[in-house]
């Protein structure tokens, strides 16, 4: 699996990222993922009773926040365009009654994957400025992998629980990747169908639409309270 992933990263960095748009979009995505991680860490702070553990999580989130900001700088430097954030829908990990250690296990796996990926991205990429930044992030992330592992034990998870949780998270991550792939396929199909619909439908209605947009005042009365009936 790891070998496959390395090949995938090599292909992405060496070929796909030659298209600047794809590379820049990847930077936006990295920023969004880091920021999402920070959000989860913020949310978990109040659940931690042990203050030293809380401090460790806090320090962890400070570094992650710096990484998110570093991707903003990298994007602006490398694209010459103003950074606009990808606004993720924030979803809490697991159910509301799940113990805290499950969230930390989730973060741990995420850190491990990120470290691996960033290591290879840095190895395959040619831009010195980008490599240096990524290397700094990798260095921090390696620390985070160890830290989250220690934290898991500190918040009371047993080794057996952790092992099981890792496996289930890893399976879920693969599932998610597969679903992402499916959804991008679905998107391609939707794009094609909607394009066909556009060219089939728009020629007959565009003049009418233009006429409607020429109205200076709104003719539809939207100024009342409406209600849904089942």
């Amino acid at each position, binding site marked *: 699996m790891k070998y496959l992933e390395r090949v995938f990263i090599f292909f992405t960095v060496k070929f796909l990222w030659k298209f600047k748009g794809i590379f820049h979009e990847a930077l936006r995505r990295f920023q969004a993922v880091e920021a999402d991680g920070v959000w989860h860490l913020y949310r978990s702070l109040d659940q931690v009773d042990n203050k030293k553990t*809380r401090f460790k999580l806090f320090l962890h989130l400070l570094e992650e926040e710096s990484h998110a900001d570093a991707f903003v700088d990298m994007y602006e430097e490398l694209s010459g365009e103003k950074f606009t954030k990808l606004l993720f829908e924030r979803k809490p990990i697991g159910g509301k009654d799940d113990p805290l250690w499950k969230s930390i296990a989730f973060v741990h796996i995420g850190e491990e994957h990120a470290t691996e990926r960033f290591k290879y991205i840095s190895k395959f990429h040619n831009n010195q400025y980008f490599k240096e930044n990524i290397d700094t992030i990798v260095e921090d992330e390696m620390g985070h992998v160890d830290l989250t592992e220690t934290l898991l034990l500190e918040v009371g998870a047993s080794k057996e629980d952790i092992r099981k949780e890792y496996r289930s998270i890893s399976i879920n991550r693969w599932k998610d990747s597969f679903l992402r792939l499916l959804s991008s396929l679905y998107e391609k199909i939707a794009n094609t169908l909607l394009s066909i619909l556009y060219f089939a439908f728009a020629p007959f209605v565009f003049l009418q639409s233009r006429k409607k947009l020429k109205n*200076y005042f709104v003719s539809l009365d939207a100024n009342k309270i409406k209600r849904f009936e089942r």
Partner: protein
Amino acid sequence: MKVIGFSFGYHDSSVAFIEDGKIKAVVPEERVTRQKHDPNLPINAFRDGMKYLNWTIHDVDKIVLHEDSYNKFSRVLTSSLSGFPSTRLEFVESMKSWLSEKLWAPFNVSNEINFPLEKIEYLGHHFSHSVQGFMGSGFEESAILVIDAVGDWACSGVYRGRWENGHPHVECLEEIAFPNSLGLVYSAITGFLGFSPNDNECSVMALSAFGEPNYYKEISKIIKIKEDGLYEIDTSYFHFINFYSGAVTKKFENIFGKARPFNQKINLSSFEDIKPDSEIKRYIDLACSLQLRIEEAIISLAKYTKEKTGLDNLCLTGGVSLNCVANKKLLEEGLFKNIHIPIEPGDCGTSFGCALYALGQDMELKPEELKYEAYLGLKYDTEKTIEVTEFLKSPQFNDYIMKTAKQHKYELSVEKIENLDELASTIAENLLNDQVIGLYQGNSELGPRALGNRSIIARADKKDVAHKLSFSIKKRASYRPYALSMTEEAGEKILKTNSSIKNYKWMQYSCDLKEEFYEALKYGCHIDKSTRPQVVNQHQNKLYYQILDNMRKEGHEAIINTSFNPSGYPMVEHPSHALAMFVRTDMDILILEDTIIRKEAL
């Protein structure tokens, strides 16, 4: 009776919790998710609000949405078809998001929070804006003017609101349809000037003070003011319909030249007279001309509204009413005896407007009792965050400070002062010692302006303090001015205004400073010697008033007040957000309720 209002879908989503005519809380999703202008269904804000108020979904009588998604969809569809054959991308992208999600908004809300669909009501987007202006204004009867970018079909609208036997009635008199939008023009030119549309409009407003209206004639051809007072936009200058082609058309570029690259330096300062180079001058003159024309269009619309309604009260709302310079001109014009601008006139505030209005149809309310203060957000326990500071001297933390935050080594000291007078005088003392202070207390304020509960404060008479604030803390452009906070007594003394000082409680109007006070407060003012004042009394914010009063006694009539947020993030909400910004920047002191956290250099 409990009612919840939702606004979401385009930008700045929020949830409002109303109980028997009282606003219990309004929670913007961005504050909870740390994503500025978060447009998503505000489910995190909803959960946090419910938990804070200890409500369950079974307690809730109805839910009101700020928008009629079918109506909006018809506008999006019409507009994307009208551009045939060059709007394929717009059609495909908008249909994907509408057909997969946005069109089903009420169903999504119902499913997501397990609430019966038949108890969900909804209002049109601009109708929500109009009631957002009226509800809470305290007026028995009022004209309402909404000036926005675009909602469903309307871009601006004139309405009349009145109370009848304890029930509010808002009727529409006129709505100007898409694409005639002042808000869209301002946003498109914001993009052309190298800033983010729907976010950095304030930068354009700030830049306008440096320029001359050399493009006034050209802009007047784009924003035409008709004889009856209404305006018309020449849309051939903008890509409002095929927006994937960029904000402005070739025709616009032929007149105003190429767009400003976002990273082109603007070496202007709000407190130093620096001559801009010719390339930058072109942009600031455009900003100045745009601002001037927008002000004229707003005043003209206000005159039209006055003629149409004959009323003395005005509720002004919609995103464009965040333009405090235009609001100042409108106030000075004296067209209306009273003007009310809601605390959050943009989309975020429509959640409480529509919920209050819908509630008013079912139960009798008193307009006077609906008036609200700014602090409508949530309140958090700071204890757990303060405990973390005990460890902020460990070697790992010092490593972080030196390596990642790139600051000098320091240690934190923590002091608790329970007596409010003592706390206020300690804070004032530290301000006098040139300290920049993060002030975090109580419930967060609603809206884009920090009003003393999530604020960064500093003295306004020292250049190095202002520099530190701009470059090492806020990391923001030096041409953007800070705002000033002052007591009502100080406001009476230093502000050059004929209108009531109470208008200035929420920083919605800019105002000139009397000449003799400018030098002493110059770093909280703009280059034209105006400021965006917040005037505070004891009842609004006790601790903040005390701090301001102590400063006043020391000869400082006002202090700088800027929002407590790192660049690119929304205002801090939770105390841990405040602590994080404090340790990551050069801020000197953090106040978390009654606890003072200081940095002491090692």
